[in-house]
């Protein structure tokens, strides 16, 4: 092979004794660094009210201030960070979730208002390891790059099919325009939604 510009800096062998710190399990996905996995104990402020949300089919008890958005409640309190904060002003769509099956912007929704309503986030879309058809289509069509807008795009796309507006590329483009993708995956997003719609 071409060794141009290469300096072999070190070739090492390790002994079995040195194995303890080395992760060798064959995880398919890139690993999360070894951060503590526990969610920090919530701070209780006097303004907080106890609410119960139905998220991804599970009841979650939270204490939230009246001003707390559903987005912050999900990310900071429920540990559901799949829903993303891109603008916090309803302009980007990264925080799209389903409430009673309809797509809404969780940054513009008060958590306290969601009591008694069914909330679905990106974490609740797959059934076990089986991806939702929209997730699978996004993967197949490479409908994302950095991935930060992706949960919102997928939640929006899944709802769009329910709404009956995935009929043509033009219609998809219009009805998906509330989800900004700065990496510019739009043509692939349209293709993914067409695929998922035709399979659905």
């Amino acid at each position, binding site marked *: 092979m071409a060794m141009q510009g290469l300096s072999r800096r070190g070739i090492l062998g390790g002994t079995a004794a040195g194995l303890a710190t080395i992760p060798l399990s064959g995880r398919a996905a890139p690993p999360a660094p070894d951060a503590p996995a526990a969610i920090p104990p919530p701070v209780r402020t006097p303004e907080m009210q106890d609410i119960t949300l139905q998220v991804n089919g599970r009841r979650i008890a939270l204490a939230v201030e009246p001003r707390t958005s559903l987005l912050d409640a999900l990310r900071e309190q429920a540990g559901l960070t799949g829903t993303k904060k891109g603008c916090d002003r309803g302009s980007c769509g990264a925080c799209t979730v389903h409430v009673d099956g309809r797509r809404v912007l969780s940054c513009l929704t008060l958590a306290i208002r969601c009591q008694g309503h069914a909330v679905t986030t990106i974490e609740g879309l797959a059934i076990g390891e089986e*991806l939702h058809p929209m997730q699978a289509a996004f993967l197949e069509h490479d409908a994302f790059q950095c991935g930060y807008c992706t949960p919102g795009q997928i939640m929006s796309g899944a709802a769009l099919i329910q709404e009956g507006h995935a009929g043509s590329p033009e219609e998809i483009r219009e009805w998906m325009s509330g989800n900004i993708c700065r990496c510019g995956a739009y043509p692939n997003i349209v293709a993914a939604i067409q695929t998922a719609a035709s399979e659905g």
Partner: protein
Amino acid sequence: MIVGQPVDRRDGRMKVTGRARYAAEFPLQGLAHAVLVQSTIAAGTILSFDTADAKGQPGVLAIITPDDAPRLQTKKASQQMVTAPLLQDKDIIYNGQHVAVVVADTLDRALEAAARVRVQYRQGEAVTIMDQALGQAAVPKHFRNGARPPDSQRGDPDAAFATAPVKIDVTYTTPVEHHNPMEPHATIAMWQGDRLTVWTATQGISGAQTTLATLFGVEPQNVRVVSPYVGGGFGCKGNTWPPATLAAMAARVVGRPVKLVLTRAQMYTSNGYRPRTIQKLKLGADQTGKLLAMRHDGFSQMSQPVLGEFVEPVALATEMLYACPNVAVSHRIVPVNQGLPTYMRAPGEASGVFALESAMDELAIALKMDPIALRLANYAEIDPHENKPFSSKKLRECYAQGAAKFEWSRRTPGPRSMRDGRWLVGLGMATATYPNNRRAASARVRLGTDGVAIVQSGTQDIGTGTYTVMAQVAADELHLPLSHVRFELGDTRYPKAPVSGGSSTVPSVSPAVQAACAALRARLFDMAIADPRTGWSGASHSDLRFENGVVIGPDRRITVPQLLAHQNLAFVEAEAESKPGDEKNEHSLHAFGAQFAEVRVDLETGEIRLTRCVGAFDAGRVLNAKTARSQLIGGITYGIGMALFEKTEVDAETGRIVNANIAEYLVPVNADIPPIETILVANDDRIGNPVGVKGMGELPMVGAAAAVANAVWHATGVRVRDLPIRIEDVLA
């Protein structure tokens, strides 16, 4: 061969299920929240803070101001490190500058307290708009980090221009633009004694490690930077900007881990921007279209020098793109009371090639020549600036294949000559080029008894596909199925790799991955030859092969688990560094492209709609057809934003950015983007690097704005020389 195949993004499953953790999403015990307080004036001095009200708010842990902020080792920092504003003094030099950090136990409480910090200023004189300060234009002190002077000249361009029969003498301007990655910048910082761990949204973990270690006066190995997923960068996460440093400072002050996430509005004042440019272009040609003279004088907006120096190098492409004997370029900076500008996707080329390729279109019109024919008439067979051959250049193929796909031949030459109902139709094209950059990078590979190769490099995947293409390169080099290769990045515990900027990640890191894998294979061969049970004593590496985890040699084979067991090893590991050699001394290294755009303009309202884009690119060897195409359509989309929408608006009076949000700073939405077709012309450039690749992150951005502007001229007859192209511009 796994390289080249349209393999699905390997981090894709994590991303589509919401399990990929970005910087702000690591849960830590006792995490506190920091919020920035920003100046409301553009110049002056802080007289005093009134923090009594804020301190009295529930949950407040600290309010850090220049009065009590820990001192940082800013004097030890290198020129490229951002060392201000870090609460080290009370000078105000731009509106939105950070002046205090409020830390509280919840985000809502930190926000509430931050809103109650009062600051008294003595207001100074501010110049907030570049055009008001052109008289202060200065020669850059650190152009290209001192690698070359800011000006260059060959031949006698002024004399040649004076006598040229056909002349273009025009000024182009481009606005301040903001990167706006979808993930706002975020950092979680945690101190354990003198050891600092940061989870941060960065394009360069090594740079973050060095910068934080320098500023806090600790050893680099005591700073660990973790960044497994980055929600887009486009340049604004290249430097280690003050918010990351301030998060670490806050964590040190309160003795707890601290999270600092910028608001979208703060993304406009905290981590750079593409500076406004004013570019004077002169082109002289003979009647056949041969360029006789080119002069490109660029002025770009700068902050006050105390923040550092950044130059938008607009005229570098002008030096090398066309065969012209008389060329001069210059770069000047104009200081104003705004933050420090920085790299933004195709820094220099995006703004500069918009000007150059618009001017070439104007020249083609003046000559009544087809725009592609004009470019071919001036095709540079060698780099005319460095007087060196190109390592490879398939630009001619780009023009030909792009024009064929776009059906350029249907274009009628005159403006307003193509219509579709109430829509004027315009077709435009432009050339793209970007240097093929490469820096030193290292990688490590470890093969264990389970047969899985774990490849690690301290590089980044900002959405560009690093996880995927590096695994493909490693799989090919090790002759392993892709399922048996895992690539890990985004942690300073891995071997060092450069910042993901300048389209350099793939050209830098893939050779290191390839070299590490080759070194691992050599190590396995050494082990096999030395193993008495193989009977290969005296054999050479060329007698052996390594395939699917098995070393195959004369008459027999041995598996990796067997080899390891014989020597009582759990794994075998190799590390290698790969760095540029002297290829750059002998060759000019560039990627190229030809970009085409079709626009429709409403006769009555001036509404501009793009209807089709085609881009044909020479980006060297393609590692993954699927992720490569995504890079290309993404770059074109970014360029469409530059052409038609993006502009940061500043209130001249206060220096405040008035559209610091993504509702009023317009970025393209789905409905704005037409079908985009991309072509990657066949190439494999092993002179540029041992893998044969050229970076393609910036390239598709470079020609996009000029292609659109040229199409708008063709539709309307209006030449727009100031971006973005607005509807008002095209209404006669």
